[in-house]
């Protein structure tokens, strides 16, 4: 897939930076609530990017990235709650912790391929809430109750609201992370990652240390998703074990499949998509009930599930990949 044109990228970034500043002009369109929603989309995009690095670019299937998200969120929460670490310092801390955890999980994962790796990570995703409630960790994690935090405060006396600042904070982190991922993928290491995905044996014979690359990719991927977790802990100002269940991992998978497996732009589209559906599920359910007259509570996961299956048939490359193919066909015709 070709890179997103640089010109357009700059336009999008400029818009992302400037639009929130229009708040005084259009207080309803650019409301704090909407900015907060966009912040959660940014966080989702980072998490999906983490999964994409592993599954899309390195070919290792993970159904358990919710676990690394949880580790990142709890690392941030514990640091802020127990050690009074400032919120911006929790991001690198979460990255380091998640890198180590992901690297360690990547070691046994080396022996597993395809379905078996999916199974091991599926098991991890199911076990996460219980691990977080483990009695010995209770002093740290707050057990079932979780940890209540404070929202990030606006620094340097900038004339921004809390949600505006949160938005810029998330945006900066995302831009840095996507820039880093893009550079990594276009380097020797990135090509090695993709070579392992496409043909492991050939990569081996070319002298690529596949074991090292796979475990390090697992670590980097976990670090990305963990950073998203840390950001979400700051944004929601609350962590609790039961929010990191198997369905969180399924949401990341949705983002991955909808956006496009192995596409950076797709990760953003996927993240935006799953937050949107998750947030409008109630509206959709009301629409089904009132306008279509069906007595049925349609939930977001029914839509997610149907989409997962349908997309696998119609657009295995995700929406971004599908749109690109369609565009190319149009141009040719």
């Amino acid at each position, binding site marked *: 897939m070709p890179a997103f044109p640089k010109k357009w990228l700059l336009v999008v970034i400029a818009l992302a930076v400037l639009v929130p500043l229009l708040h005084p002009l259009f207080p309803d369109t650019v409301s704090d609530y909407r900015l907060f929603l966009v912040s959660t989309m940014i966080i989702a995009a980072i998490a999906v990017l983490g999964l994409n690095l592993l599954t899309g670019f390195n070919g290792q299937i993970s159904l358990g990235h919710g676990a690394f998200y949880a580790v990142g969120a709890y690392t941030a929460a514990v640091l802020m709650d127990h050690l009074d670490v400032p919120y911006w310092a929790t991001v690198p801390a979460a990255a380091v912790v998640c890198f180590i955890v992901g690297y360690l999980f990547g070691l046994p994962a080396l022996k597993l391929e395809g379905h078996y790796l999916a199974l091991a990570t599926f098991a991890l995703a199911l*076990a996460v809430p219980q691990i977080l409630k483990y009695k010995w960790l209770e002093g740290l994690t707050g057990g079932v109750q979780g940890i209540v935090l404070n929202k990030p405060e606006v620094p340097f006396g900038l004339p921004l609201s809390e949600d505006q600042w949160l938005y810029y904070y998330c945006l900066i982190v995302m831009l840095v992370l996507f820039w880093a991922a893009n550079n990594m993928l276009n380097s020797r290491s990135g090509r090695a990652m993709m070579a392992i995905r496409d043909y492991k044996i050939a990569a081996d014979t070319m002298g690529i240390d596949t074991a090292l690359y796979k475990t390090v990719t697992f670590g980097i991927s976990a670090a990305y998703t963990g950073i998203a977790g840390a950001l979400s802990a700051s944004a929601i100002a609350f962590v609790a074990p039961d929010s990191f269940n198997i369905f969180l991992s399924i949401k990341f998978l949705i983002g991955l499949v909808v956006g496009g497996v192995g596409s950076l732009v797709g990760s953003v589209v996927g993240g935006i998509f799953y937050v949107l559906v998750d947030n409008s599920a109630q509206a959709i359910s009301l629409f089904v009930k009132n306008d279509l007259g069906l007595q049925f*509570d349609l939930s977001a996961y029914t839509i997610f599930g149907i989409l997962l299956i349908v997309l696998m048939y119609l657009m295995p490359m995700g929406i971004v990949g599908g749109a690109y193919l369609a565009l190319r066909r149009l141009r040719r015709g």
Partner: protein
Amino acid sequence: MEQFLQQLASGLANGAIYACVALALVMIYVSTDHLNFAQGEMAMFSTYLSWQLMSWGASFWVAFFVAVVLSFVLGVIIERAILRPLHNAPVLSVVVVFIGLLAICNSMAGAIWSYLIKEFPSPFPKASFGIAGVIGPHQLGVVLVTLIVLGFLFVFFRYTPLGLAMRAAAQNPQMARLVGVRVDWMLALGWGLAAAVGAVAGIMVAHIVYLDPNMMGGILLYAFASALVGGIGNPGGAVIGGFIVGVLENMVAYAGNQIEKATGVYIVGNGEKLTVALIIVIFVLTVKPAGLFGRVAVKRV
């Protein structure tokens, strides 16, 4: 000692459930090489079907049989409609479709029957059943029912022409096709049977864990662990693995309890059941992927 026997018995009862679900997983695995992540949610859906029938006035066993037959039909339909086109698809696509099925079953059950936890009746008479102080009537009943189902499946696969054809289709599709076995339909039948066996497990366990859309999550994980312990390609192994894992699960919790009593240090208890399953899964996958009775897969480079 009595407590130990109680734990052993309830471990066997859980093991019977795990054995059923593990068997369903293995049936799909041997014929298509797919791990069905939606098996637990399919079983949960079947259990809701039987609950619905009972709330419409059917007796337990009528609801039981109708739900099992319906699950069989649904299983066949799912295979024909959703999984058939994916025979040669990459692993990621297959896994994603299974996760999609999981999400659909779970959310549909929640939408139709709500997420409130429901009580589920037990068909086994309270008095004069079971051994007092060791095994409860429902637990004994569960073991008996699953043993009957397993026996039935054994006879079906071992002694009937259809069973033989299904085994042939799973082992060597090309050759089976050459001798006139309709391999495609055999796979669909296998899916149907797996769904039906899963339904039996769901209906039997619902009295113990109560009925709600998330009831099978932990059970599915233990069933995977059972199938792996027994060697994932081996149906008999899956059953034995189920009983082993069921007893192991309860023994770990029991041992944790005893240790806490003796030393006051909490290590492991009922709250760590899924973590124990996770450890079993990863341990078997990395240390002995063939399990106890499975064949060692040799890969050609």
